[in-house]
């Protein structure tokens, strides 16, 4: 970390829907920016720099930093674009932390957005992979996730029923979240009866396509406490990339999350994550990840993920609620998704999460997943960091 402490002081999320033909990209971005500024009690004149990103190639428009200034308020300000695939939103958050922690800027506006209704998601994701070696059989995000799930199931005997339990949890949680796109509970039978997309992944195991944007405002120590009585202090960030070609992946485990979690918890002095963390907003694009990645995060032993999920420990009211917002399975505007996890964790720490609030949340973790099985993580706390 840099020398300065950094906190989130405001967040804003748009109305998320499968289609938002009522707004163009700039207008969608502006919805989130306006709400975040109001939440922080700031005007655009107070913002020193803007960090923005989405999935390049998705809407057929690149260079979002150039054409979105009307929506971001970035006119004649420093505007920096970050785009790292699925991790874009969480990378934006980490980039914002770095800019403030370094002393470069005091108040930074961070914006992630996507209009998935205007994109060919599978086609665009394909362009992230090697044209000679990867693309022949590649089939977008679901193909890799299915390969991960198969490998995990073969190793530990987990079933699609175990995974369905995760989808049921997140969809139930989403009913508490006015920002979620899918707000209807589902049953395990619903998941198992939904069409098989790529064995063993059913339609209801995966995230939807969403139009939406999220904005987060970060400020340095000294400014943050003046803006809000309970800032969300960022204790640590971690980021890991693992490989070049898809065939290099250690399928069945998420090595990048394993390493990132180890670093994140070490930086914050967390030894028993299950006891010391109050809530997790996980970028979990499909239900099987809800079992596999909590093992990679070190919450439970290898092979024990399903048992922990079935115990109810990750439900609202359980030992460690995961995805009180309903997570990615209920809402997925891809370039915003990682930043929404960060914003939702901030809302939990600030006590602003309303019907989805985990009582007295003091320590939260938000994650980002994407690129090529990459992981971003942030650790949020109510207490000011002691470093």
């Amino acid at each position, binding site marked *: 970390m840099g020398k300065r402490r950094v906190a989130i002081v405001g967040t804003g999320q748009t109305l998320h829907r499968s289609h938002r033909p009522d707004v163009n990209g700039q207008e969608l971005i502006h919805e989130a920016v306006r709400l975040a500024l109001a939440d922080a009690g700031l005007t655009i004149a107070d913002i020193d720099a803007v960090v923005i990103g989405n999935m390049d190639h998705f809407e057929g428009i690149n260079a979002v930093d150039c054409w979105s200034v009307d929506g971001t308020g970035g006119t004649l300000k420093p505007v920096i674009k970050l785009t790292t695939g699925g991790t874009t939103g969480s990378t934006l958050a980490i980039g914002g932390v770095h800019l403030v922690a370094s002393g470069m800027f005091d108040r930074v506006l961070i914006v992630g957005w996507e209009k998935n209704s205007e994109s*060919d998601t*599978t*086609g*665009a994701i*394909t*362009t992230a992979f090697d*044209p*000679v*070696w*990867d*693309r*022949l*059989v*590649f*089939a*977008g995000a*679901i*193909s890799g996730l*299915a*390969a*991960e*799930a*198969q*490998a995990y199931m*073969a190793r530990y005997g987990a079933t699609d029923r175990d995974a369905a339990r995760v989808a049921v949890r997140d969809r139930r949680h989403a009913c508490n979240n006015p920002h979620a796109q899918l707000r209807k509970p589902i049953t395990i039978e619903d998941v198992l009866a939904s*069409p*098989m*997309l*790529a*064995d*063993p*992944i059913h339609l209801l195991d995966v995230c939807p396509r969403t139009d939406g944007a999220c904005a987060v405002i970060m400020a340095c120590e000294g400014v943050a406490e003046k803006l809000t009585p309970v800032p969300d202090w960022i204790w640590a960030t971690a980021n890991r990339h693992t*490989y*070049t*070609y*898809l*065939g*290099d*992946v250690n*399928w*069945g485990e998420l090595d990048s999350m394993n390493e990132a979690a180890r670093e994140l918890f070490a930086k914050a002095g967390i030894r028993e994550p299950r006891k010391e963390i109050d809530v997790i907003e996980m970028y979990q694009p499909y239900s099987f990840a809800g079992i596999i990645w909590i093992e990679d995060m070190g919450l439970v032993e290898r092979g024990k993920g399903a048992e922990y999920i079935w115990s109810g420990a990750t439900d609202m009211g359980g030992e460690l609620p995961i995805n009180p917002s309903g997570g990615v399975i209920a809402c997925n505007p891809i370039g915003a998704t990682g930043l929404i996890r960060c914003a939702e964790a901030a809302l939990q720490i600030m006590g602003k999460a309303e019907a989805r609030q985990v009582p007295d949340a003091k320590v939260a973790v938000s994650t980002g997943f994407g690129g090529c099985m990459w992981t971003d993580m942030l650790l949020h706390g109510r207490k000011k960091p002691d470093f």
Partner: protein
Amino acid sequence: MQNDPLVIESGDVSQPFRYAVGSYGSVFLKELKENRRFLGVRCPKCHKVFVPPRRVCGECLVEMTDFVDVGPLGRIGTFTILRYAFIDPETGEQKPVPYGYGFIRLDGADTLFQHYIDIQDESRIRIGARVEPVFADQRKASIRDVLYFRVIDETSDA
């Protein structure tokens, strides 16, 4: 406001991207075409064998020069069967769903080689199953010189 959409067409054009496969990739594809032979490359430091061959071991960040034969037989490392229809952006045509998507551990390799898996009998597709490549008659120095891998023994003891 429910109006007809504005349609912007790019017409019947091609997008002629040219990618360099690199000298190691070229050797691999040439051997595949001429000798139906799979080549990997071994890291002098960690001794891992990589397929496709590349010049640098990313983990050790050292140059690799030691080519080794791998395959042609292997085992399924992991797999899925793609069942949802989508357009292949490489060709503009629909992918031939359902199709088997396999990560094959070629004998002697440490990384996995992606390809189609024949799914005529889905019950034989499992992790650890023994597979062999089926080659195209007319080979053009491309990954497609292998049509697909097929299961020759589904017992999964590796």
